[in-house]
């Protein structure tokens, strides 16, 4: 048995590495899209300064001398993904500790992988499909609070949907293997679709924003998060796995 401290530290370390590598993915595949979007944003803000109303002067002043340069932000990308990775790794370790006994597998590595898959669906895929991430130049600053709240809601709903899928699949298991799988799909999909219908529709993509760039950015964002969760899952699986050979040696 491992102590909670040991499980937590493993999660933090795995999360740090997963975050660094997700940052590398984002740097290679995402930064050029962010740059392209910022170029559009700047071209737009110079042409339509009247859109900003009262904020024209402070905004213009900020553009003259940004608090952090573009190079600084490129480096800050790694800081952001690393810290986010550490936070996710810690939360993952707590979830693993508290939920491990509920997961019906004798294999800790499989348990970690299953938990990561569930986390990816709930925390990444469900929010992504309802509110796809947007590059700079897309999004009305006045609705940031609404968008933040709805984003966090989809995240919680995503986790609830995964739970509903697992619960229904376990209940349906008494009717056979097909029922077990169908129950999981129904529990997940019904919860997600219901939530999507209730949550407000938000589309703030300007008519003139290039569709190709938008989706290149969104796939880069999805890839960044997929990298993070994939490495978190496999990394934690390796970190908690105990090779059978070692216990056999100890027993002998």
């Amino acid at each position, binding site marked *: 048995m491992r102590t909670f401290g040991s499980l937590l530290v493993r999660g933090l370390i795995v999360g740090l590495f997963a975050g660094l590598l997700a940052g590398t993915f984002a740097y290679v595949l995402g930064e050029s899209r962010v740059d392209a979007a910022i170029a559009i944003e700047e071209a737009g803000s110079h042409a339509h300064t009247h859109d900003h109303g009262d904020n024209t002067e402070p905004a213009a002043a900020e553009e003259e001398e940004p608090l952090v340069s573009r190079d600084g932000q490129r480096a800050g990308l790694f800081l952001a993904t690393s*810290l*986010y990775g550490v936070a996710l790794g810690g939360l993952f370790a707590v979830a693993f*500790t508290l939920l491990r006994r509920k997961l019906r597998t004798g294999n800790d590595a499989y348990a970690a992988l299953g938990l990561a898959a569930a986390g990816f669906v709930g925390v990444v895929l469900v929010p992504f499909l309802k*509110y796809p*991430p947007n590059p700079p130049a897309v999004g009305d600053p006045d609705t940031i609070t609404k968008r933040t709240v709805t984003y966090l809601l989809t995240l919680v709903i995503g986790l609830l949907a995964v739970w509903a899928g697992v619960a229904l699949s376990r209940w349906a298991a008494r009717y056979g293997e097909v029922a077990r799988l169908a129950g999981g799909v129904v529990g997940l999909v019904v919860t997600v679709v219901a939530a999507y219908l209730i949550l407000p529709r938000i589309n703030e993509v300007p008519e003139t924003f290039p569709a190709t760039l938008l989706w290149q950015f969104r796939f880069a*964002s999805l890839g960044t998060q997929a990298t993070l969760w994939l490495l978190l899952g496999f990394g934690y699986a390796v970190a908690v796995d105990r090779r059978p050979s070692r*216990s056999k040696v*100890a027993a002998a």
Partner: protein
Amino acid sequence: MAAPAQSVAVPALSPKLLAAALLSVGLMLLLAYLVGFDQGAVSRSGMYLHELMHDGRHLLGVPCH
């Protein structure tokens, strides 16, 4: 110790474990908040950290300006 098929690597549930888990969740959420949403209120760095992590926020799918 021979590992039985159902052996699990986690400690048994106890009030102490739950307290530690809760504290960890709080700290991790604070850290995630710092990356995703803080605009200086927690970091006490004005907008500096917020701007520094701008690209990361966008690419991690967090809504941003």
